Every structure is written in C-alpha cells, then in structure tokens.
C-alpha cells in the first residue's frame, strides 16, 4: 500500500520516565510517543508534574529513570543548549536588558550569525508574530503582556527548534487576549509545521488548540487522546471531572440493574467500556448539557427528583443547580429552552443512558 498515508513518526519517545526529588516522585514512569508535527497538550492540576516533565524534555533536568529518545537517539543527558528543542517559559523569560530585536536575535547571536542576517531574520519573525516592525528596537520591558508573549514565541522560533515547549504561557493573561493568543499560537503551529508540546491547567485552552491531550495526575499520565476522546471517553472519574463541570453519581450492581449509592433510585447504566462483566460498582458521569427537566409525560432512561436551588446565566446557556438529597446536580440548558422563572420548585431530572459515561469506581 505505497500510497496509504504513513502514520507520522514519533519525534520524541518517552519510556518509563521517572523523576524523583529526594523521596518525592514528581513524574512517575511515563510512556509517551510524541508525533512529528503534532500539537500535544499536557493538562493536569497544579503539582501534577507537568513542568517537571517538560524540563526533562527540554534538557534542564535529567530523568531519574527511564529513557527519552529524539528520533531514536537517547538524549536523557543531552544538555538544553545541545537539543533541537526550545521552551517558552511561563514567565516568558525575556531578557529585560535587551530590546525586542535583541531578544529575538539572541539564539542567532550565540550561534555566531552575522548581524545583518540576524536583523533580517528578526524582522521576519516580528512580522510573523504580528508585531509592528518598529518594535524591533523597543525595550521588552515596555511591551504589554500580549506583546511580550509574541516576542517570546518569535525568539523561540528564531532558534529554529524542531520541538517547541510551552509552559502555561497564557495563564497570566486576561481572558480576551488569551482567546486571541490561543488562536494565533495554533496558526503559528500550522504555519511552521513544528511539533508543539503545550502545558496548561485550563482545559478550555487544551480543547481549542490541541491535536492530542494528555492528562496528568500526581506524576502519572492517566490518559492521552484527541480532545474528542478525552471529552467523550474519559478513562476515570478524575479525567471526567477535570474536563469540565459534570455530575457524577456512584452506582452499584443489583442483580441485572444498578442502584444509586449516593442518590436514591435504580438506573439504566451502560457498564464501563472494556470492564469485566461482573463489575460491582461504577461512577456514572453525566454532563450538565445532557441533563434535562422532564415535564409530566416526558420520559428518559433515568429520572430523579430534585429541587432547583440556584440558577446562573452563562451567556448563551443557563445553568441550574439542583439539590438531590445531599448532592447538588447541574443542568445546563440553552437560553431558548430555559425554564420559566420559579427556582425552588421541585423538578424531575432526566437523562438517557447513552448520554452518560460510566467509568470504573
């Protein structure tokens, strides 16, 4: 099949990579293939080891165990300045004593490129990241957050690395600008065709930009997949909760069916994919947008009684908090389907088994 599209080769391969600080395990036996040209995002809560992982990939730390290979070459101990990779720091790490131009030219300067060539390349890159040409001689300390962001990316591109790493570069930027920069970054990825590995703890960022997302938790990579997979088929409760606000109920097998553990009732549940047939309990994850209020006469696979106790507008959608026993469940409706005002009233919540995801307990 000479014409079938070849699967892209892994450019970076991690096998059993582990990093400990004294006794503390920061990164725990990670296996991962990073494909040539992909945009891979690593998400995970604070302290889950994302930065530590990236620093090993960039060459600023060595793994305690395991191997990192770049195109098949073991690079565990290759120092950062010898790797064809470049990291954009969360702090950006722009050199405050240099101008925008000098910052961008920096990697060329240390490589001994002559001034004219450097200047030419810097101007190209300034244009590429959509900064005005006049910024060439502006001090970086006088640039705004978004501009600094772009300078940092231009500088990384000037190094012309094969892989670019980003450590939460947008976390300090305000919402609106963040949206713009996210899209620009994606464009730059597309235009340069380089491999991007991006860290964030914002799932929204990850969803918008990535080809694949890896979810980390306590040093482990718990799931890697396309945004779609992560969203629709989380492997466990942690991933499902991390991916957004969700309703999770615990169910236990009772004969043929399932009973709620933390809410009363019997439920129709599709058992977790790939689980043993005789699994005894599971978490059922239902996204708020798949929940609905049942009016008398309407039916759903599952129904449960509750009391609306709060109602929020989320722009085009409206979110309801519904108290079911001790638990609070979320229902998200589009503005068009909004309930008439009357919070506090008793309602019936319903959802279909196919809209729920069940994961191992």
């Amino acid at each position: 099949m000479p014409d079938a599209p070849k699967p892209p080769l892994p450019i970076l391969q991690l096998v059993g990579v582990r990093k400990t600080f004294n006794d503390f395990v920061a990164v725990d036996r990670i296996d991962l293939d990073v494909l040539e040209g992909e945009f891979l995002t690593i998400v995970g809560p604070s302290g889950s080891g994302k930065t530590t992982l990236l620093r090993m990939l960039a060459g600023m730390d060595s793994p305690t165990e395991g191997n990192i290979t770049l195109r098949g070459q073991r690079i565990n101990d290759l120092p950062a300045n010898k790797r064809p990779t470049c990291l954009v720091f969360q702090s950006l790490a722009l050199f405050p004593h240099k101008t925008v131009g000098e910052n961008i030219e920096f990697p060329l300067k240390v490589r001994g490129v002559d001034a004219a060539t450097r200047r030419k390349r810097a101007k190209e890159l300034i244009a590429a990241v959509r900064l005005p040409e006049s910024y060439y001689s502006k001090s970086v300390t006088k640039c705004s957050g978004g501009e600094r962001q772009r300078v940092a990316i231009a500088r990384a591109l000037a190094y012309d690395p094969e892989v670019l790493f980003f450590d939460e570069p947008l976390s300090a930027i305000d919402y609106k600008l963040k949206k713009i920069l996210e899209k620009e970054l994606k464009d730059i990825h597309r235009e340069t065709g380089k491999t991007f590995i991006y860290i964030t703890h914002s799932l929204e960022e990850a969803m918008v930009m990535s080809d694949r997302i890896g979810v980390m938790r306590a040093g482990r990579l718990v799931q890697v997949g396309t945004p779609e997979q992560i969203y629709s088929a989380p492997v466990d409760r942690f991933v499902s909760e991390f991916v957004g606000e969700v309703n999770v109920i615990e169910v236990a097998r009772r004969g043929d069916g399932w009973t709620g553990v933390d809410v009363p009732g019997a439920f129709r549940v599709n058992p977790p994919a790939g689980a043993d047939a005789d699994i005894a309990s599971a978490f059922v994850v239902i996204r708020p947008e798949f929940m609905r209020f049942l009016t008398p006469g309407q039916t759903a696979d599952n129904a449960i009684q509750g009391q609306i106790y709060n109602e929020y507008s989320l722009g085009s959608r409206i979110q309801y908090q519904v108290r079911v026993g001790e638990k609070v469940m979320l229902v998200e409706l589009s503005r068009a389907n909004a309930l008439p005002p009357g919070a506090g009233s008793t309602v019936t919540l319903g959802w279909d088994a196919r809209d729920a995801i069940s994961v191992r307990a």
Partner: protein
Amino acid sequence: MQQEKKRTRFFIAIWTAIVVVAIYLPIVCGALASLSKGRYFGFPVRTFSFEWWQRTVDSIEIGMIVRNSVAVAAMVTVVSVIVAFCGALAFARYDWKGRRLFQKIVLLPIFFPQPVLGLALLLWFSALGIQTSWLTAAFAHLVWIVPVVTLVIAIQVYGFDPSLEEAAFDLGCSRVQVLREVTLPLLWPGIWSGALFAFLLSWGNFPLSLYTAGADSTIPKWLYAKMVAGYTPMVPALGTMSTLGAAAALLGAGLVAMIIRRQRAA
C-alpha cells in the same frame, strides 16, 4: 483621617530631618576645626585659614597613607566583588543542601565586634609568622566586607529570575555565554553597589586596620594615632577631605548610574 495622617507624616518628616542634621553636625564641626587657624578649637572661629589643608595636601607622609588607603580599598573592592558575587549566588540563587547554614555563616562576621576580630587576626598572623602590612589589612577588611557585599548582591540576586539563565541556555548558550549575556548584565546594579560599599567601607575602616596594617598606615589609622598624640588641625582636615572623597565617590557613582539609566531609557 486625612488630618491624622498628615500629622503623622509631618512628625515623621520632622523627626527624620532632626536625625539627619544630628548625623552631619559633627562632620561639619570637624570641617570647621580644620579651617580654623588655631590649633585648639573655639567657637565662633576667630581666624579661618587654609593652612592646615595646605599642609595636609603637601605632606609626603599623607600622600603615602592616602595611597595605602586607596590600595587597600581597591584591592578589597576587586576581591570582595568577585568572591561575594559567587557567594551571593550561593546565598540566594541556588537551592543547595547547605544553603541555610551558609547564609548564617556568612552573616556571622558582620555580627562580630571588629576590634575583637582585628585582634584575633593579629594573633593569627603572628602565630603564622606573617608580617602585617597593608596586604594583611586588606585581608582583614575582606573578612567583614565580603559578607556585607554578599548581602548587597544577594538582595539583587533574589530579584533575579533564574529562568532567564535557563532560557539563554536553552537557546543554545554555553555556560560562559549565559554568564556574559544574561547573568552579569542583569546583576550589574547589585555588583556596582556592592563594589561601592566595599570601597567605601574599606576606606573608612579603623578597627581592623589598627591591628592588622602593621607598619603601614591608612587614613583612619593615621587620624587615630594623631588624635591620641600629635593632634593638629590636620586631623580634622584630612578627616574632612576623606569624607568629601567618599561623598564624591558616592555622588560620582550615583551620576554614572543616572546617566546609564537615562541612556537605557532613551
């Protein structure tokens, strides 16, 4: 609220002004004594004269001790900046096992009475059979100036973002290039103020020089010797000159810093 706040601010400003005046009062009195013709001071000064200044400037002896003072201070400046620069990195930049302990050890000499330190050094030199001279005095100065300068530079280092060094390294720099392109330029202000402190503290030091300079004299040591026996208004004259010299150095450094900042800003 505003009223009360204003009153507090006023009190603080007045208090500070009083203390500043008190600080400079004796220095001014010294200058007055150096400008009076009479050997023994009386106020109001009966006759002013530059005679003592003239004699001070003309003296070979004083030329020698000024040279000694400059030599000691220059040497102390150079060595202490280099040593303290490294020390400051260990103090504030790197996270290493012994850091906490190191920080405390570095501070100890600052918290130590200098006359006792001077004597201890004298005993030590004499036990080693080392002849004391301006060189040993410079060494003695280093013992307490290096910690001070370490502290001064460390404060700058605390504000230094280590990821800048990592970024430079990541962008292909060698260790040396990182130092030259990033670390040093960013720490210059701290290094300069460290150097200024080193120079001036050495310039004004008396207790260490007294015990460790041997046959060589420095300005403060000479002033003391003359004050104790052999007082003439050359004592306050040289004292005033030395003070003015220090002020000029400080002012000069300030001006240079300002010009550099202006140029940067431009």
